[in-house]
Protein backbone atom coordinates (compact mmCIF):
# COMPACT_ATOMS: atom_id res chain seq x y z
CA UNK A 1 0.00 0.00 0.00
CA UNK A 2 2.77 2.40 0.92
CA UNK A 3 4.57 1.69 -2.33
CA UNK A 4 1.38 2.37 -4.26
CA UNK A 5 0.83 5.61 -2.37
CA UNK A 6 4.42 6.60 -2.98
CA UNK A 7 3.92 5.91 -6.66
CA UNK A 8 0.90 8.25 -6.74
CA UNK A 9 2.91 10.94 -4.98
CA UNK A 10 5.77 10.61 -7.44
CA UNK A 11 3.31 10.94 -10.32
CA UNK A 12 1.96 14.13 -8.76
CA UNK A 13 5.46 15.51 -8.20
CA UNK A 14 6.37 14.75 -11.82
CA UNK A 15 3.36 16.80 -12.94
CA UNK A 16 4.56 19.60 -10.65
CA UNK A 17 8.04 19.35 -12.10
CA UNK A 18 6.86 19.85 -15.67
CA UNK A 19 4.71 22.76 -14.58
CA UNK A 20 7.82 24.33 -13.06
CA UNK A 21 9.57 23.90 -16.40
CA UNK A 22 6.63 25.47 -18.24
CA UNK A 23 6.57 28.34 -15.77
CA UNK A 24 10.28 29.03 -16.21
CA UNK A 25 9.94 28.94 -19.99
CA UNK A 26 6.95 31.24 -19.72
CA UNK A 27 8.95 33.66 -17.59
CA UNK A 28 11.64 33.60 -20.26
CA UNK A 29 9.03 34.77 -22.78
CA UNK A 30 9.04 31.56 -24.78
CA UNK A 31 5.31 31.14 -25.34
CA UNK A 32 3.01 32.87 -27.80
CA UNK A 33 -0.04 31.36 -26.13
CA UNK A 34 -1.69 31.91 -22.74
CA UNK A 35 -0.45 29.54 -20.05
CA UNK A 36 -2.63 28.28 -17.20
CA UNK A 37 -0.91 26.16 -14.61
CA UNK A 38 -2.56 23.94 -12.02
CA UNK A 39 -0.06 24.00 -9.19
CA UNK A 40 -1.77 22.33 -6.25
CA UNK A 41 -4.23 20.38 -8.42
CA UNK A 42 -1.94 17.47 -9.26
CA UNK A 43 -3.39 14.84 -6.93
CA UNK A 44 -6.83 15.18 -8.53
CA UNK A 45 -5.39 14.44 -11.96
CA UNK A 46 -3.46 11.44 -10.66
CA UNK A 47 -6.57 10.11 -8.91
CA UNK A 48 -8.60 10.47 -12.10
CA UNK A 49 -5.97 8.68 -14.14
CA UNK A 50 -6.23 5.74 -11.75
CA UNK A 51 -10.05 5.77 -11.79
CA UNK A 52 -10.35 6.21 -15.55
CA UNK A 53 -11.23 3.22 -17.75
CA UNK A 54 -9.92 2.84 -21.27
CA UNK A 55 -13.43 3.24 -22.68
CA UNK A 56 -14.05 6.48 -20.76
CA UNK A 57 -13.76 9.95 -22.26
CA UNK A 58 -12.31 13.05 -20.65
CA UNK A 59 -13.41 16.59 -21.43
CA UNK A 60 -11.41 19.45 -20.01
CA UNK A 61 -11.43 23.18 -19.43
CA UNK A 62 -8.82 25.91 -19.91
CA UNK A 63 -6.93 24.75 -16.80
CA UNK A 64 -6.05 21.27 -18.00
CA UNK A 65 -2.28 20.92 -17.91
CA UNK A 66 -2.28 18.60 -14.89
CA UNK A 67 -4.55 16.13 -16.66
CA UNK A 68 -2.55 16.34 -19.87
CA UNK A 69 0.63 15.54 -17.95
CA UNK A 70 -1.04 12.79 -15.92
CA UNK A 71 -2.55 11.03 -18.94
CA UNK A 72 0.29 11.41 -21.47
CA UNK A 73 3.50 9.54 -20.62
CA UNK A 74 5.46 11.54 -23.19
CA UNK A 75 5.67 14.93 -21.48
CA UNK A 76 7.84 16.28 -24.28
CA UNK A 77 4.89 16.11 -26.65
CA UNK A 78 2.95 18.30 -24.23
CA UNK A 79 5.83 20.79 -24.06
CA UNK A 80 6.08 20.75 -27.87
CA UNK A 81 2.39 21.58 -28.14
CA UNK A 82 2.97 24.68 -26.05
CA UNK A 83 5.63 25.68 -28.57
CA UNK A 84 3.02 25.06 -31.30
CA UNK A 85 5.35 22.53 -32.90
CA UNK A 86 4.07 19.79 -35.24
CA UNK A 87 5.50 17.25 -32.77
CA UNK A 88 3.04 18.53 -30.19
CA UNK A 89 0.34 16.28 -28.84
CA UNK A 90 -2.25 18.14 -30.92
CA UNK A 91 0.20 18.81 -33.75
CA UNK A 92 0.69 22.36 -32.53
CA UNK A 93 -2.84 23.31 -33.53
CA UNK A 94 -4.41 23.72 -30.12
CA UNK A 95 -1.91 25.20 -27.67
CA UNK A 96 -2.71 24.71 -24.02
CA UNK A 97 -6.22 25.94 -23.37
CA UNK A 98 -7.84 23.75 -26.05
CA UNK A 99 -5.37 20.86 -25.98
CA UNK A 100 -6.77 17.46 -26.87
CA UNK A 101 -5.20 14.01 -26.85
CA UNK A 102 -7.55 11.62 -28.58
CA UNK A 103 -5.18 8.69 -28.09
CA UNK A 104 -5.51 9.13 -24.31
CA UNK A 105 -9.26 9.74 -24.63
CA UNK A 106 -9.05 13.47 -23.94
CA UNK A 107 -11.58 14.12 -26.70
CA UNK A 108 -12.44 17.79 -26.24
CA UNK A 109 -11.11 20.79 -24.34
CA UNK A 110 -12.50 24.28 -24.32
CA UNK A 111 -11.02 27.55 -23.22
CA UNK A 112 -14.53 28.97 -22.88
CA UNK A 113 -15.86 28.80 -19.33
CA UNK A 114 -18.83 26.43 -19.15
CA UNK A 115 -18.59 25.50 -22.82
CA UNK A 116 -17.62 21.88 -22.30
CA UNK A 117 -20.59 20.74 -20.17
CA UNK A 118 -22.93 20.47 -23.16
CA UNK A 119 -20.37 18.82 -25.43
CA UNK A 120 -19.76 16.28 -22.67
CA UNK A 121 -23.50 15.56 -22.54
CA UNK A 122 -23.44 14.85 -26.28
CA UNK A 123 -20.51 12.46 -25.96
CA UNK A 124 -22.25 10.76 -23.02
CA UNK A 125 -25.50 10.44 -24.97
CA UNK A 126 -23.67 8.75 -27.80
CA UNK A 127 -22.00 6.32 -25.34
CA UNK A 128 -25.12 5.74 -23.25
CA UNK A 129 -25.90 2.43 -24.85
CA UNK A 130 -22.33 1.20 -24.97
CA UNK A 131 -21.70 0.72 -21.29
CA UNK A 132 -19.52 0.84 -19.29
CA UNK A 133 -18.13 4.00 -20.92
CA UNK A 134 -18.29 7.06 -18.68
CA UNK A 135 -17.66 10.67 -19.63
CA UNK A 136 -15.72 12.89 -17.22
CA UNK A 137 -16.08 16.62 -17.58
CA UNK A 138 -13.82 18.84 -15.51
CA UNK A 139 -14.52 22.45 -14.58
CA UNK A 140 -13.88 24.93 -11.82
CA UNK A 141 -16.09 26.85 -9.43
CA UNK A 142 -16.12 29.74 -11.93
CA UNK A 143 -17.69 27.62 -14.68
CA UNK A 144 -20.62 26.58 -12.51
CA UNK A 145 -21.73 30.21 -12.60
CA UNK A 146 -22.50 29.86 -16.31
CA UNK A 147 -26.07 29.00 -17.30
CA UNK A 148 -24.79 26.07 -19.33
CA UNK A 149 -23.98 24.27 -16.07
CA UNK A 150 -27.62 24.13 -14.93
CA UNK A 151 -28.78 23.09 -18.39
CA UNK A 152 -26.24 20.28 -18.46
CA UNK A 153 -27.33 18.95 -15.06
CA UNK A 154 -30.95 18.96 -16.22
CA UNK A 155 -30.15 17.23 -19.50
CA UNK A 156 -27.83 14.68 -17.89
CA UNK A 157 -30.46 13.72 -15.32
CA UNK A 158 -33.37 13.78 -17.80
CA UNK A 159 -31.57 11.60 -20.33
CA UNK A 160 -29.86 9.31 -17.82
CA UNK A 161 -26.38 10.07 -19.06
CA UNK A 162 -23.24 8.23 -17.91
CA UNK A 163 -21.41 11.38 -16.92
CA UNK A 164 -19.31 12.60 -13.98
CA UNK A 165 -19.04 16.33 -13.39
CA UNK A 166 -15.73 16.93 -11.63
CA UNK A 167 -15.64 20.37 -10.04
CA UNK A 168 -12.30 21.67 -8.82
CA UNK A 169 -13.27 24.26 -6.25
CA UNK A 170 -10.42 26.68 -5.61
CA UNK A 171 -12.77 29.57 -4.82
CA UNK A 172 -11.10 31.96 -7.25
CA UNK A 173 -12.00 33.34 -10.64
CA UNK A 174 -9.15 35.44 -11.96
CA UNK A 175 -8.43 37.91 -9.15
CA UNK A 176 -11.83 37.61 -7.57
CA UNK A 177 -12.59 35.39 -4.62
CA UNK A 178 -15.95 33.62 -4.67
CA UNK A 179 -17.14 35.70 -1.70
CA UNK A 180 -16.55 38.87 -3.73
CA UNK A 181 -18.57 37.88 -6.75
CA UNK A 182 -21.57 35.84 -5.80
CA UNK A 183 -23.64 34.15 -3.14
CA UNK A 184 -22.45 30.74 -2.07
CA UNK A 185 -23.78 28.03 -4.38
CA UNK A 186 -24.87 24.97 -2.48
CA UNK A 187 -24.07 22.37 -5.08
CA UNK A 188 -25.58 19.63 -2.97
CA UNK A 189 -28.97 21.38 -3.07
CA UNK A 190 -28.64 22.11 -6.77
CA UNK A 191 -27.82 18.49 -7.52
CA UNK A 192 -30.69 17.29 -5.37
CA UNK A 193 -33.05 19.57 -7.28
CA UNK A 194 -32.04 17.98 -10.56
CA UNK A 195 -31.68 14.45 -9.26
CA UNK A 196 -27.93 14.33 -9.73
CA UNK A 197 -25.87 12.37 -7.19
CA UNK A 198 -23.59 14.72 -5.24
CA UNK A 199 -20.28 13.60 -3.79
CA UNK A 200 -18.38 16.06 -1.68
CA UNK A 201 -14.71 15.58 -0.98
CA UNK A 202 -14.15 17.38 2.30
CA UNK A 203 -10.37 17.22 2.44
CA UNK A 204 -7.77 17.34 -0.30
CA UNK A 205 -6.47 13.91 0.58
CA UNK A 206 -5.53 11.47 -2.13
CA UNK A 207 -7.41 8.47 -0.74
CA UNK A 208 -10.56 10.51 -0.24
CA UNK A 209 -10.43 11.89 -3.77
CA UNK A 210 -9.82 8.43 -5.22
CA UNK A 211 -12.66 6.91 -3.23
CA UNK A 212 -15.04 9.72 -4.27
CA UNK A 213 -14.13 9.31 -7.91
CA UNK A 214 -14.62 5.59 -7.75
CA UNK A 215 -18.10 6.10 -6.28
CA UNK A 216 -18.94 8.70 -8.89
CA UNK A 217 -17.85 6.40 -11.67
CA UNK A 218 -19.94 3.51 -10.35
CA UNK A 219 -23.00 5.74 -10.31
CA UNK A 220 -22.37 7.09 -13.80
CA UNK A 221 -21.75 3.63 -15.17
CA UNK A 222 -25.34 2.76 -14.35
CA UNK A 223 -26.46 5.71 -16.50
CA UNK A 224 -27.06 8.28 -13.80
CA UNK A 225 -25.05 11.48 -13.57
CA UNK A 226 -22.84 12.22 -10.58
CA UNK A 227 -21.11 15.39 -9.48
CA UNK A 228 -17.97 15.34 -7.42
CA UNK A 229 -16.69 18.51 -5.78
CA UNK A 230 -13.05 18.61 -4.76
CA UNK A 231 -11.66 21.47 -2.65
CA UNK A 232 -8.27 22.61 -3.85
CA UNK A 233 -5.84 25.36 -2.96
CA UNK A 234 -4.23 26.75 -6.05
CA UNK A 235 -0.77 27.86 -5.13
CA UNK A 236 1.48 30.37 -6.71
CA UNK A 237 1.92 33.27 -4.37
CA UNK A 238 1.59 35.70 -7.21
CA UNK A 239 0.58 39.12 -6.00
CA UNK A 240 -0.47 42.11 -8.08
CA UNK A 241 -1.33 45.70 -7.32
CA UNK A 242 -4.98 46.35 -6.78
CA UNK A 243 -7.25 49.27 -6.25
CA UNK A 244 -6.01 52.83 -6.44
CA UNK A 245 -3.12 52.28 -4.13
CA UNK A 246 -0.12 50.68 -5.79
CA UNK A 247 1.13 49.57 -2.42
CA UNK A 248 -2.01 47.54 -1.89
CA UNK A 249 -1.36 44.03 -3.13
CA UNK A 250 -3.47 40.95 -3.18
CA UNK A 251 -3.18 37.28 -3.92
CA UNK A 252 -4.02 36.15 -7.44
CA UNK A 253 -4.12 32.63 -8.77
CA UNK A 254 -1.57 33.67 -11.38
CA UNK A 255 -4.17 33.72 -14.13
CA UNK A 256 -2.63 37.02 -14.99
CA UNK A 257 0.64 35.41 -16.03
CA UNK A 258 3.53 33.33 -14.87
CA UNK A 259 4.39 32.78 -11.20
CA UNK A 260 7.21 35.29 -11.03
CA UNK A 261 8.68 34.18 -7.74
CA UNK A 262 8.84 30.50 -8.71
CA UNK A 263 12.09 29.50 -10.36
CA UNK A 264 12.97 26.19 -8.75
CA UNK A 265 16.51 24.90 -9.24
CA UNK A 266 16.19 21.69 -7.28
CA UNK A 267 13.67 19.21 -5.90
CA UNK A 268 12.91 21.03 -2.64
CA UNK A 269 12.09 24.26 -4.43
CA UNK A 270 9.26 22.60 -6.31
CA UNK A 271 6.99 23.08 -3.29
CA UNK A 272 5.28 25.98 -1.57
CA UNK A 273 4.23 26.72 1.96
CA UNK A 274 0.91 25.08 2.83
CA UNK A 275 1.43 22.77 -0.10
CA UNK A 276 -0.27 19.37 0.09
CA UNK A 277 2.59 17.82 -1.88
CA UNK A 278 5.16 19.29 0.51
CA UNK A 279 3.30 17.76 3.43
CA UNK A 280 3.23 14.38 1.73
CA UNK A 281 6.91 14.57 0.86
CA UNK A 282 7.64 15.14 4.53
CA UNK A 283 5.43 12.26 5.59
CA UNK A 284 6.70 9.72 3.09
CA UNK A 285 10.11 8.54 2.15
CA UNK A 286 10.54 9.80 -1.38
CA UNK A 287 13.39 7.93 -2.99
CA UNK A 288 16.59 9.89 -3.22
CA UNK A 289 17.19 8.75 -6.80
CA UNK A 290 13.75 10.11 -7.73
CA UNK A 291 14.67 13.44 -6.15
CA UNK A 292 17.92 13.48 -8.04
CA UNK A 293 16.23 12.67 -11.33
CA UNK A 294 13.73 15.48 -10.74
CA UNK A 295 16.49 17.99 -10.11
CA UNK A 296 18.41 16.88 -13.21
CA UNK A 297 15.28 17.07 -15.35
CA UNK A 298 14.48 20.49 -13.95
CA UNK A 299 17.92 21.83 -14.80
CA UNK A 300 18.06 20.10 -18.17
CA UNK A 301 14.64 21.24 -19.43
CA UNK A 302 14.98 24.74 -18.04
CA UNK A 303 18.26 25.50 -19.72
Amino acid at each position, binding site marked *: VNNQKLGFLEEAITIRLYQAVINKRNLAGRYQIPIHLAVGHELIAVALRHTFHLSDSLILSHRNVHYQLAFEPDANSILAELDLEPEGISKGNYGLMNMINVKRRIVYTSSILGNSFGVA*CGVALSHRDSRPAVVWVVAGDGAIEEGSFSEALLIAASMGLPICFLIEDNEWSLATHVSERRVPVRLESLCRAYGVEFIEIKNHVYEEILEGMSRARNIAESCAPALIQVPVTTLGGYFVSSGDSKSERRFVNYHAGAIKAWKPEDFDELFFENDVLKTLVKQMQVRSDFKLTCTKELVSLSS
Partner: protein
Amino acid sequence: VTTYVNAINAALLSRLSSLQKPVVFGQNIAAGSRIGGLTAGLDELGEAQVINTPNCENTLTAMTFGVALTGRPACFILKQQDFLMLGVDHLVNTFNALRNRTLEAPCVFLMVVVDSGWEGPQSGMNNISSLSDLTGIPAYFASGLEETPQAFEAAFSGAPAFLCVSQAMFKRELATRDDCELAASGFGFNVYRTKADKSPSGTAVIATGLSGLQLLDKSGKAPPEVGCILNTFRYPLDIQDLMRFVPETITRVTIITDEKRFSHPLTSLAKSAFLVASRSISFVIRKQERAWTIPGAEAEILSILGTRD
Protein backbone atom coordinates in the same frame (compact mmCIF):
# COMPACT_ATOMS: atom_id res chain seq x y z
CA VAL B 1 -48.22 17.53 -56.21
CA THR B 2 -47.30 17.40 -52.56
CA THR B 3 -47.33 19.79 -49.65
CA TYR B 4 -44.06 21.37 -48.70
CA VAL B 5 -44.09 19.80 -45.23
CA ASN B 6 -44.58 16.36 -46.76
CA ALA B 7 -41.65 16.97 -49.08
CA ILE B 8 -39.30 17.96 -46.26
CA ASN B 9 -40.56 15.16 -44.02
CA ALA B 10 -39.87 12.63 -46.79
CA ALA B 11 -36.40 14.07 -47.34
CA LEU B 12 -35.66 13.90 -43.59
CA LEU B 13 -36.82 10.30 -43.21
CA SER B 14 -34.96 9.29 -46.33
CA ARG B 15 -31.69 10.79 -45.10
CA LEU B 16 -31.96 9.44 -41.55
CA SER B 17 -32.83 5.95 -42.68
CA SER B 18 -29.66 5.90 -44.78
CA LEU B 19 -27.46 6.63 -41.74
CA GLN B 20 -26.09 4.30 -39.12
CA LYS B 21 -27.52 4.87 -35.64
CA PRO B 22 -28.31 8.56 -35.98
CA VAL B 23 -29.18 10.52 -32.84
CA VAL B 24 -32.05 12.94 -33.44
CA PHE B 25 -33.33 15.30 -30.80
CA GLY B 26 -35.35 18.42 -30.23
CA GLN B 27 -38.51 19.62 -28.56
CA ASN B 28 -41.73 17.84 -29.53
CA ILE B 29 -40.15 15.95 -32.38
CA ALA B 30 -41.85 12.75 -31.28
CA ALA B 31 -44.94 14.20 -29.63
CA GLY B 32 -48.06 16.16 -30.53
CA SER B 33 -48.17 17.48 -34.06
CA ARG B 34 -44.48 16.62 -34.51
CA ILE B 35 -43.71 20.16 -35.50
CA GLY B 36 -46.65 20.38 -37.85
CA GLY B 37 -45.73 17.08 -39.50
CA LEU B 38 -42.10 17.91 -40.15
CA THR B 39 -40.85 15.08 -37.93
CA ALA B 40 -43.74 12.65 -38.42
CA GLY B 41 -42.60 9.04 -38.54
CA LEU B 42 -39.26 9.67 -36.84
CA ASP B 43 -40.03 7.37 -33.94
CA GLU B 44 -40.69 4.54 -36.36
CA LEU B 45 -37.19 4.65 -37.81
CA GLY B 46 -35.52 1.50 -36.57
CA GLU B 47 -31.93 2.53 -35.96
CA ALA B 48 -32.46 6.14 -34.99
CA GLN B 49 -32.31 7.28 -31.39
CA VAL B 50 -35.09 9.87 -31.18
CA ILE B 51 -35.35 12.07 -28.10
CA ASN B 52 -37.86 14.68 -27.02
CA THR B 53 -35.75 17.12 -25.07
CA PRO B 54 -36.21 19.80 -22.43
CA ASN B 55 -35.86 23.44 -23.48
CA CYS B 56 -32.09 23.73 -23.24
CA GLU B 57 -30.94 25.01 -26.63
CA ASN B 58 -27.47 25.97 -25.51
CA THR B 59 -26.72 22.46 -24.30
CA LEU B 60 -28.57 20.82 -27.18
CA THR B 61 -26.45 22.75 -29.66
CA ALA B 62 -23.34 21.57 -27.83
CA MET B 63 -24.64 18.02 -27.75
CA THR B 64 -25.01 17.98 -31.52
CA PHE B 65 -21.26 18.53 -31.77
CA GLY B 66 -20.62 16.10 -28.89
CA VAL B 67 -22.53 13.25 -30.52
CA ALA B 68 -20.91 13.86 -33.92
CA LEU B 69 -17.51 13.93 -32.21
CA THR B 70 -17.97 10.25 -31.33
CA GLY B 71 -18.67 9.34 -34.96
CA ARG B 72 -22.45 9.07 -34.73
CA PRO B 73 -24.69 11.19 -36.97
CA ALA B 74 -26.40 13.95 -34.99
CA CYS B 75 -29.39 16.08 -35.87
CA PHE B 76 -30.85 18.79 -33.65
CA ILE B 77 -34.28 19.93 -34.84
CA LEU B 78 -35.61 23.35 -33.85
CA LYS B 79 -39.14 24.53 -34.49
CA GLN B 80 -37.96 28.12 -34.70
CA GLN B 81 -34.52 29.19 -35.83
CA ASP B 82 -34.37 32.07 -33.36
CA PHE B 83 -33.80 29.63 -30.49
CA LEU B 84 -30.56 28.50 -32.08
CA MET B 85 -29.15 31.87 -31.01
CA LEU B 86 -29.07 30.47 -27.46
CA GLY B 87 -26.36 28.14 -28.69
CA VAL B 88 -24.18 30.67 -30.49
CA ASP B 89 -21.26 29.95 -28.12
CA HIS B 90 -21.09 26.46 -29.57
CA LEU B 91 -21.77 27.42 -33.16
CA VAL B 92 -18.82 29.81 -32.96
CA ASN B 93 -16.46 28.57 -30.26
CA THR B 94 -17.05 24.83 -30.18
CA PHE B 95 -17.04 24.61 -33.96
CA ASN B 96 -13.87 26.69 -33.97
CA ALA B 97 -12.22 24.25 -31.56
CA LEU B 98 -13.20 21.37 -33.83
CA ARG B 99 -12.05 22.91 -37.10
CA ASN B 100 -8.72 21.15 -37.11
CA ARG B 101 -10.42 17.79 -36.83
CA THR B 102 -12.46 15.88 -39.36
CA LEU B 103 -16.01 15.36 -38.21
CA GLU B 104 -16.95 12.45 -40.40
CA ALA B 105 -20.43 12.01 -39.02
CA PRO B 106 -23.20 14.38 -40.07
CA CYS B 107 -23.83 17.19 -37.60
CA VAL B 108 -27.01 18.95 -38.67
CA PHE B 109 -28.97 21.83 -37.18
CA LEU B 110 -32.37 21.53 -38.85
CA MET B 111 -34.42 24.63 -38.23
CA VAL B 112 -37.74 26.06 -39.23
CA VAL B 113 -37.18 29.58 -40.53
CA VAL B 114 -39.95 31.92 -39.49
CA ASP B 115 -40.38 33.58 -42.86
CA SER B 116 -44.07 34.29 -42.81
CA GLY B 117 -43.19 37.91 -42.32
CA TRP B 118 -45.39 39.34 -39.63
CA GLU B 119 -44.12 37.80 -36.41
CA GLY B 120 -42.19 40.95 -35.64
CA PRO B 121 -40.53 40.69 -32.25
CA GLN B 122 -41.31 37.00 -32.06
CA SER B 123 -38.81 36.32 -34.76
CA GLY B 124 -35.88 38.61 -35.29
CA MET B 125 -33.26 36.38 -36.83
CA ASN B 126 -33.62 34.79 -40.16
CA ASN B 127 -30.45 36.25 -41.54
CA ILE B 128 -29.05 32.82 -42.11
CA SER B 129 -26.25 34.11 -44.34
CA SER B 130 -25.02 36.30 -41.47
CA LEU B 131 -25.18 33.34 -39.12
CA SER B 132 -23.28 31.24 -41.62
CA ASP B 133 -20.60 33.90 -42.01
CA LEU B 134 -20.32 34.38 -38.26
CA THR B 135 -19.88 30.69 -37.56
CA GLY B 136 -18.23 29.37 -40.70
CA ILE B 137 -20.93 26.70 -40.95
CA PRO B 138 -22.56 26.40 -44.40
CA ALA B 139 -26.33 26.68 -44.69
CA TYR B 140 -28.58 24.61 -46.91
CA PHE B 141 -32.12 25.60 -47.85
CA ALA B 142 -35.08 23.42 -48.80
CA SER B 143 -35.97 26.07 -51.32
CA GLY B 144 -38.00 24.14 -53.88
CA LEU B 145 -39.27 20.77 -54.96
CA GLU B 146 -35.99 19.86 -56.65
CA GLU B 147 -33.85 21.62 -54.07
CA THR B 148 -35.33 19.99 -50.94
CA PRO B 149 -33.78 16.53 -51.37
CA GLN B 150 -30.58 18.16 -52.67
CA ALA B 151 -30.31 20.35 -49.59
CA PHE B 152 -30.95 17.45 -47.22
CA GLU B 153 -28.42 15.24 -48.96
CA ALA B 154 -25.75 17.94 -48.85
CA ALA B 155 -26.43 18.86 -45.22
CA PHE B 156 -26.21 15.25 -44.09
CA SER B 157 -23.02 14.63 -46.02
CA GLY B 158 -20.65 14.93 -43.05
CA ALA B 159 -19.47 18.34 -41.93
CA PRO B 160 -21.56 20.55 -39.59
CA ALA B 161 -24.40 22.24 -41.48
CA PHE B 162 -27.45 24.40 -41.00
CA LEU B 163 -30.50 23.03 -42.77
CA CYS B 164 -33.34 25.50 -43.19
CA VAL B 165 -36.97 24.96 -44.04
CA SER B 166 -39.68 27.53 -44.55
CA GLN B 167 -42.53 27.94 -42.09
CA ALA B 168 -44.60 30.06 -44.45
CA MET B 169 -44.77 27.32 -47.05
CA PHE B 170 -45.49 24.37 -44.73
CA LYS B 171 -49.02 23.66 -45.90
CA ARG B 172 -48.65 24.92 -49.45
CA GLU B 173 -48.85 22.55 -52.38
CA LEU B 174 -45.55 22.40 -54.09
CA ALA B 175 -45.23 21.99 -57.79
CA THR B 176 -42.91 23.49 -60.32
CA ARG B 177 -44.55 26.20 -62.43
CA ASP B 178 -45.76 25.04 -65.79
CA ASP B 179 -43.62 27.62 -67.56
CA CYS B 180 -40.42 26.62 -65.71
CA GLU B 181 -38.02 23.95 -66.73
CA LEU B 182 -34.85 22.82 -65.03
CA ALA B 183 -32.08 23.69 -67.46
CA ALA B 184 -28.89 23.11 -65.46
CA SER B 185 -27.43 22.61 -61.99
CA GLY B 186 -24.40 24.18 -60.36
CA PHE B 187 -22.81 23.81 -56.93
CA GLY B 188 -25.63 24.71 -54.58
CA PHE B 189 -28.14 26.00 -57.12
CA ASN B 190 -30.41 25.04 -59.99
CA VAL B 191 -31.07 27.04 -63.12
CA TYR B 192 -34.60 27.23 -64.52
CA ARG B 193 -35.68 28.58 -67.87
CA THR B 194 -38.96 30.39 -67.55
CA LYS B 195 -39.58 30.79 -71.26
CA ALA B 196 -39.60 28.35 -74.11
CA ASP B 197 -37.03 30.49 -75.84
CA LYS B 198 -33.61 28.89 -75.47
CA SER B 199 -31.96 32.28 -75.39
CA PRO B 200 -33.84 33.98 -72.59
CA SER B 201 -33.74 37.70 -72.42
CA GLY B 202 -34.81 40.17 -69.79
CA THR B 203 -34.05 39.55 -66.14
CA ALA B 204 -32.31 36.68 -64.38
CA VAL B 205 -33.49 36.21 -60.83
CA ILE B 206 -31.05 34.85 -58.28
CA ALA B 207 -33.16 33.57 -55.40
CA THR B 208 -31.28 33.27 -52.11
CA GLY B 209 -32.29 31.56 -48.89
CA LEU B 210 -35.79 30.17 -49.11
CA SER B 211 -37.15 32.82 -51.42
CA GLY B 212 -37.06 30.51 -54.43
CA LEU B 213 -40.02 28.66 -52.94
CA GLN B 214 -42.24 31.61 -53.73
CA LEU B 215 -41.04 31.81 -57.33
CA LEU B 216 -41.21 28.14 -58.16
CA ASP B 217 -44.45 27.48 -56.41
CA LYS B 218 -47.29 26.97 -58.85
CA SER B 219 -49.16 29.94 -57.48
CA GLY B 220 -46.10 32.15 -57.39
CA LYS B 221 -45.97 35.25 -59.49
CA ALA B 222 -42.72 35.76 -61.30
CA PRO B 223 -42.68 39.05 -63.21
CA PRO B 224 -43.18 38.57 -66.97
CA GLU B 225 -39.77 39.98 -67.78
CA VAL B 226 -38.01 37.13 -65.93
CA GLY B 227 -36.01 35.05 -68.35
CA CYS B 228 -34.45 32.58 -65.97
CA ILE B 229 -34.31 31.77 -62.29
CA LEU B 230 -31.23 30.64 -60.43
CA ASN B 231 -32.60 29.03 -57.30
CA THR B 232 -29.90 28.60 -54.69
CA PHE B 233 -29.98 26.10 -51.86
CA ARG B 234 -26.61 26.74 -50.28
CA TYR B 235 -24.81 29.59 -48.59
CA PRO B 236 -22.06 30.62 -49.15
CA LEU B 237 -22.24 30.73 -52.90
CA ASP B 238 -19.50 30.86 -55.47
CA ILE B 239 -20.59 33.95 -57.34
CA GLN B 240 -18.30 33.29 -60.29
CA ASP B 241 -19.80 29.83 -60.70
CA LEU B 242 -23.27 31.30 -60.39
CA MET B 243 -22.68 34.01 -62.98
CA ARG B 244 -21.46 31.47 -65.50
CA PHE B 245 -25.04 30.26 -65.70
CA VAL B 246 -26.53 33.67 -66.47
CA PRO B 247 -27.08 33.61 -70.25
CA GLU B 248 -25.38 36.25 -72.34
CA THR B 249 -28.73 37.49 -73.53
CA ILE B 250 -29.75 38.50 -70.02
CA THR B 251 -29.40 42.21 -69.42
CA ARG B 252 -30.46 42.54 -65.83
CA VAL B 253 -30.01 40.52 -62.65
CA THR B 254 -32.25 40.74 -59.64
CA ILE B 255 -31.21 39.18 -56.39
CA ILE B 256 -34.10 38.38 -54.08
CA THR B 257 -33.99 37.33 -50.50
CA ASP B 258 -36.29 36.34 -47.68
CA GLU B 259 -33.92 37.67 -45.04
CA LYS B 260 -35.34 40.20 -42.67
CA ARG B 261 -32.51 42.60 -43.12
CA PHE B 262 -30.18 43.19 -45.99
CA SER B 263 -27.24 41.54 -44.43
CA HIS B 264 -23.63 42.26 -45.18
CA PRO B 265 -23.09 38.85 -46.84
CA LEU B 266 -25.97 39.50 -49.19
CA THR B 267 -24.62 42.93 -50.05
CA SER B 268 -21.25 41.33 -50.70
CA LEU B 269 -22.88 38.77 -52.94
CA ALA B 270 -24.56 41.46 -55.01
CA LYS B 271 -21.39 43.53 -55.12
CA SER B 272 -19.33 40.53 -56.21
CA ALA B 273 -21.85 39.71 -58.91
CA PHE B 274 -21.62 43.28 -60.08
CA LEU B 275 -17.84 43.10 -60.28
CA VAL B 276 -17.73 39.66 -61.84
CA ALA B 277 -20.20 40.53 -64.58
CA SER B 278 -18.39 41.20 -67.81
CA ARG B 279 -21.33 42.74 -69.57
CA SER B 280 -23.82 45.45 -68.99
CA ILE B 281 -26.00 44.43 -66.09
CA SER B 282 -27.87 46.42 -63.55
CA PHE B 283 -28.62 45.08 -60.12
CA VAL B 284 -31.59 45.52 -57.94
CA ILE B 285 -32.08 43.91 -54.60
CA ARG B 286 -35.73 43.49 -54.01
CA LYS B 287 -37.09 42.58 -50.66
CA GLN B 288 -39.75 40.00 -50.50
CA GLU B 289 -43.18 41.50 -50.41
CA ARG B 290 -43.92 41.03 -46.76
CA ALA B 291 -40.45 40.80 -45.30
CA TRP B 292 -39.34 43.16 -42.58
CA THR B 293 -36.39 45.30 -43.25
CA ILE B 294 -34.49 48.22 -41.84
CA PRO B 295 -35.91 51.47 -43.23
CA GLY B 296 -33.58 52.91 -45.82
CA ALA B 297 -31.46 49.78 -46.15
CA GLU B 298 -32.47 49.18 -49.73
CA ALA B 299 -31.50 52.66 -50.81
CA GLU B 300 -28.22 52.31 -48.94
CA ILE B 301 -27.37 49.08 -50.70
CA LEU B 302 -28.23 50.52 -54.07
CA SER B 303 -25.99 53.47 -53.35
CA ILE B 304 -23.16 51.08 -52.50
CA LEU B 305 -23.67 49.02 -55.61
CA GLY B 306 -24.62 51.72 -58.01
CA THR B 307 -26.03 50.74 -61.36
CA ARG B 308 -24.44 50.06 -64.67
CA ASP B 309 -26.39 49.97 -67.89
